[in-house]
């Protein structure tokens, strides 16, 4: 039960020219635990959706066959369970127990069996609260644990996990991995898609690598796959374990102070905090969830009015406006001095094409059309977006959208950059490019503030760090 057989499998979404996944031959036996790898765009999520029976026949074109225990996946849906990336959009009900019961109701499980199975599933994932806990009161990691319980309660033979920890901070990701390790039994086949390979390896006994052009690059036990293909996989963006990154230290001494936070806070989200950012330095802001890191980024970015204390921009940053707090500057002036990069790049997109997106800032801040064109073309090349100049920003992959988000902030040449979790969920290639880019900006005299959970990123780039504590007013 739960055996997967793919023969020459391919899928092209309706209306797309390129095949999302193609030429995959793969057999996964009952009870195997497989980590599915591949650079972004290799079709991992499409393959999982196909196995979950979530690609209706009329939603695209199929090549070859996919079978679960000899059945078309669309007819084998009762045997398959799937957990997705985004915790917010997986929970259906207002109370935890009801949410786990939701799938059991859909499958027509007799009423008297539902609650015992709900309790058993909650126990299996180590859920710390009772059935009546509101789902809205859970952290991201707890929500993913609950989603896992809701899937396991259905007793799937094949469990598909599509980057279940990508939207979580390290603490939440650990919660989910522990739940998977403790809850998935030997009688369940597991296919896991996950960027962070080192953390995922204890959960699997086999690694399959998809090739972006089609087919399978490598398949076998983790050690053998990484020994034979480690170099190529790392170059393609896979986080191959045991390949440390060279740190990028500042090459020049720091310059003028750009901005100072004096007892800056916003109760109850952020406790009063002092910090200084100078030109030519990269400052990392660390701290647990709920400490107000993102709030601090918004305050330093001049986007939110401080609740207490103040933000002081020096004349090195703001010229004649140095006396006015950044949150009172007009938006075009702000964009030329402080660039903010949001955690979700899609929040920042305003126009219909990548080119216009990059041109927006320069045009808004009064640059000529010729200047704008030269700035945009330079950024397109620097951030490997030149092939995508005409694409709609909303259709970009995660890594492309992230690069565009950073590029839009750079387009107005601000002296200070404030980034909120820039490396979240990125593959190794984009990650290295970001470190390289930010290190280059720092060495060119920019000030860089990064709010992050990513310890490796801090080790590679940051010259200094500030650790916030949980605001805990209540």
């Amino acid at each position, binding site marked *: 039960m739960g055996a997967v057989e793919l023969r020459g499998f391919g899928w092209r979404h309706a209306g797309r020219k390129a095949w999302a996944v193609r030429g995959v031959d793969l057999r996964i036996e009952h009870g195997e635990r497989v980590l599915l790898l591949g650079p972004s765009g290799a079709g991992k999520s499409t393959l999982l*959706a196909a196995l*979950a029976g*979530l690609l209706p026949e009329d939603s695209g074109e199929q090549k070859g066959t996919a079978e679960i225990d000899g059945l078309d996946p669309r007819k084998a*849906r*009762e045997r398959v*369970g799937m957990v*997705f990336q*985004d915790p*917010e*959009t*997986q*929970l*259906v*009900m*207002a*109370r935890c127990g*009801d949410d786990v*019961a*939701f*799938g*059991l*109701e*859909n*499958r*027509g*499980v007799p*009423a008297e069996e*539902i*609650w015992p199975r*709900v309790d058993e599933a909650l126990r299996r994932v180590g859920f710390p609260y009772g059935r009546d806990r*509101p*789902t*809205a*009161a*859970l952290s991201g990691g707890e929500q993913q644990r609950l*989603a896992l319980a809701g*899937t396991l309660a*259905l007793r799937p033979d094949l469990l598909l996990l599509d980057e279940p920890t990508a939207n979580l901070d390290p603490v939440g990701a650990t919660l989910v991995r522990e739940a998977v390790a403790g809850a998935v039994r030997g009688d369940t086949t597991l296919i896991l898609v996950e960027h962070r390979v080192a953390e995922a390896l204890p959960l699997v006994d086999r690694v399959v690598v998809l090739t972006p052009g089609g087919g399978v690059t490598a398949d076998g036990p983790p050690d053998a796959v990484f020994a034979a293909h480690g170099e190529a996989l790392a170059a393609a963006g896979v986080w191959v374990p045991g390949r440390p990154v060279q740190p990028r230290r500042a090459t020049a001494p720091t310059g003028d102070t750009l901005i100072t936070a004096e007892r800056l806070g916003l109760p109850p989200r952020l406790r009063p905090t002092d910090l200084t950012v100078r030109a030519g330095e990269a400052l990392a802001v660390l701290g647990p969830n709920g400490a107000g890191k993102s709030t601090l980024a918004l305050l330093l*970015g001049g986007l*939110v009015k401080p609740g207490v204390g103040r933000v002081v921009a020096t004349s090195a940053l703001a010229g004649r406006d140095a006396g006015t707090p950044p949150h009172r500057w*007009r*938006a*075009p002036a*702000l*964009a*030329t001095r402080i*660039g*903010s990069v*949001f955690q*979700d790049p*899609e*929040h*920042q*997109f*305003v126009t219909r094409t990548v080119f216009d997106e990059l041109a*927006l*800032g320069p045009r*808004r801040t009064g640059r000529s059309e010729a200047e704008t064109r030269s700035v945009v073309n330079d950024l397109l090349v620097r951030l490997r977006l030149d092939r995508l100049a005409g694409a709609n920003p909303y259709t970009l992959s995660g890594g492309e959208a992230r690069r565009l988000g950073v590029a*839009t902030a750079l387009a*107005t040449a601000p002296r200070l950059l404030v980034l909120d979790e820039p490396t979240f969920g990125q593959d190794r290639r984009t990650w290295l490019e970001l470190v390289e880019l930010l290190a280059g900006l720092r060495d060119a005299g920019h000030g860089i503030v990064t709010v992050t959970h990513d310890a490796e990123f801090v080790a590679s780039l940051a010259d200094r760090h500030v650790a916030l504590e949980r605001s805990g007013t209540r």
Partner: protein
Amino acid sequence: MTESPLAAPIAEAGAPLARRNPVAKLGAALVFSLALLATVDPVAPAIAIAIELAVLPLFGVRYRVLARRAWPLLVGAVGIVVTLVLFAAERDGAVLVDAGPVVVTTGVLMTALGLVLRMLAVALPGVIVFATTDPTDLADALIQNVKTSPRFAIGALAAFRLLPLLGMEWQMLTLARRARGVDAGRNPLAKLRLFASTAFALLVGAIRRGTRLATAMDARGFDAGTPRTVARRQRFTAADAALIIVAGALAGLALTVSVLLGTFRPLIG
């Protein structure tokens, strides 16, 4: 995490009428309110409000809590009185206040009072029902007792959960636009355009989120053609039927008193 204020019942769950089947409560409120719509006089609604306030403790709602929940209604009531006093076309009856352009007569005051009482009498039952009903229970009862499609009832419930996210999303979109150098300054046309573009982005995001939620529900077998079972049984008992009948009878009582007093003015005719 923010919790939707609409989603939080404010009553003691154990109160005798709060425990009644949600569909019965909704039905009773509808019967009561619809009957009152038949008249435009002030007497029937006044009696209805007295009844509504009298049964409030049976629903486990405190008066203070109701006042807090119903404050938009009270604001609306004040608005009606002020508007009518200032702008009413017919100013019959004795003059009470004559302050230049503002003339307050007994006729105007009676009309305003009638309207306010009517609005409160018709709206209060709904407020009471939603204050004492958990949305999940309501969806369950709609599916089990009046055969509403689960696709609709559960779908609405799931969408309801995503509502509080929209507020946060709007704030992030607004801040991100400022960070991009986009603001409207004092230009009203630019303000309108910025609002429209932000609203569009919010809509795009909401649709994507809705699609993801629908896929996740699909993956858990929702609406797959298998007959559903129910984890939480909602029963519609004789007491629930009685609640609706009594609501109808009380509304009838209010109307009868109004007819007997000669104040009854039918809405139609």
